[in-house]
């Protein structure tokens, strides 16, 4: 069973690297969040048409962006896991999923909270919102698969297949506003011809996005570590049983 641990040789290195990054990630997160929230709540002016509700944007949009980018990240690492059979790739996708699900949920909730004042309802069944909801379900299904296999390496491959199929959904989310006429705002920041909104709003938005990103990194490191150690724990338990 000494053999088994070889598969986790590089995880050991991986763990060293991540735990080196970890404190910095944590600090950066705190700082960015402080600055971002200050800008968002106190500095940025109220929007001429949306009034104070525009402040919801600073938690809504970054969450939405994270939701999508985390999914893409999962798709990529799952693909690598499938092709190069690297356990850490699968485990990192697994570790990212709950975080992505949370951000998706936040995008949905904050969005609805924004919808009530802006559209007069918490929810409409338009393309953007629906496809976002589907993304949420995809996250749930992904976690469901991991939960349902007792053979971890099988679970990894099964989950990878699902993520890759579901990846079709991301571009739909992104461009739904352009393809179908929806209530929802069209892209105004991440567009071909640069941002279209005033810096007084753009700056806090970007700061918050960075804050969310580094927050993701922080939590991600914790979870990956947990996953790797958990897998190791499993193997050692089995090894003890063998004797």
């Amino acid at each position, binding site marked *: 069973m000494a053999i088994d641990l070889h598969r986790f040789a590089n995880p050991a290195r991986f763990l060293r690297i991540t735990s080196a990054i970890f404190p910095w990630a944590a600090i950066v997160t705190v700082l960015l969040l402080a600055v971002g929230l200050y800008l968002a709540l106190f500095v940025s002016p109220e929007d001429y048409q949306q009034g104070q509700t525009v402040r919801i944007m600073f938690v809504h949009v970054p969450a939405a962006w994270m939701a999508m980018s985390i999914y893409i990240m999962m798709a990529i690492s799952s693909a690598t896991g499938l092709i190069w059979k690297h356990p850490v790739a699968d485990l990192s996708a697994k570790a990212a999923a709950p975080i992505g699900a949370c951000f998706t949920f936040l995008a949905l909730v904050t969005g*609805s909270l924004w919808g009530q004042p802006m559209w007069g*309802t*918490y*929810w*409409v*069944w*338009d393309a953007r919102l*629906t496809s976002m*909801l589907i993304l949420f*379900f995809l996250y*749930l*299904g992904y*976690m*469901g698969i991991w*939960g*349902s296999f007792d053979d971890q390496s099988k679970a990894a491959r099964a989950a990878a297949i699902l993520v890759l199929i579901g990846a079709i959904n991301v571009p739909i989310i992104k461009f739904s506003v352009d393809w179908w006429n929806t209530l929802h705002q069209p892209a105004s920041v991440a567009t071909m011809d640069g941002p279209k909104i005033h810096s007084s709003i753009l700056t806090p938005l970007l700061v918050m996005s960075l804050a969310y990103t580094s927050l993701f990194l922080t939590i991600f490191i914790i979870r990956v570590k947990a996953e790797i150690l958990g897998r190791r724990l499993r193997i050692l338990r089995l090894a003890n049983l063998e004797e």
Partner: protein
Amino acid sequence: MDKFISLIARDIRLAVRQGSAFTMTLSFFVVAVTLYPLGVGPELNILTRIGPGVLWVGALLSCLLTLDRIFQADFEDGSLDQLMLGSLPVEFMALAKIIAHWLTSVVPLILITPILAVSLNMPADGIWAMMLALLVGSPVLSLIGAIGAGLTVGMKRGGVLLSLLVLPLYIPVLIFGVAAVEAAIAVLPMGPHILLLAGMSLGALVICPVAAAAALRLAVE
């Protein structure tokens, strides 16, 4: 009696350990409910109008999909044999498992209902009525379901048959459950409907464990 309790406790613990059980039922409920607005389109007044029906049918269907959990696992690993041989009468054994199922599979649905109700923009008092009606009526779902589960346990692909057996029996609950909520929304007294649901629950509580036990005796042969 403490055997009764220990059985319930064990089933709950199993559900908690497996974890995925909860989340998956909930997510199916959410998905199934969200399908309708997608189907019938976004107009709010329509949604309000069909809201109660959609939620109840959603609850029915998700409960349906969890029914096989009541006995199937225990049947497959032979635990059911042991449970039947224990000194606890089979009827009470079945009842214990039904209660555990209700607590682990149905109650979560009730708890998440408000959120879905909002997204179907149901008025506040409607939401309360919905939860009350579910609370009083849903035990029938587990109880009747247990009979179907007992009859189909051990069948290779009993799923469709199970739903055929059970769904028709669910219809009364559906009708009065919806009636109660709509009464509340229309600010009419919903007492009678609730009482009817309670009555059904009590009736089922008496009959179903016996029937389920009989079904189980066949199943283990």
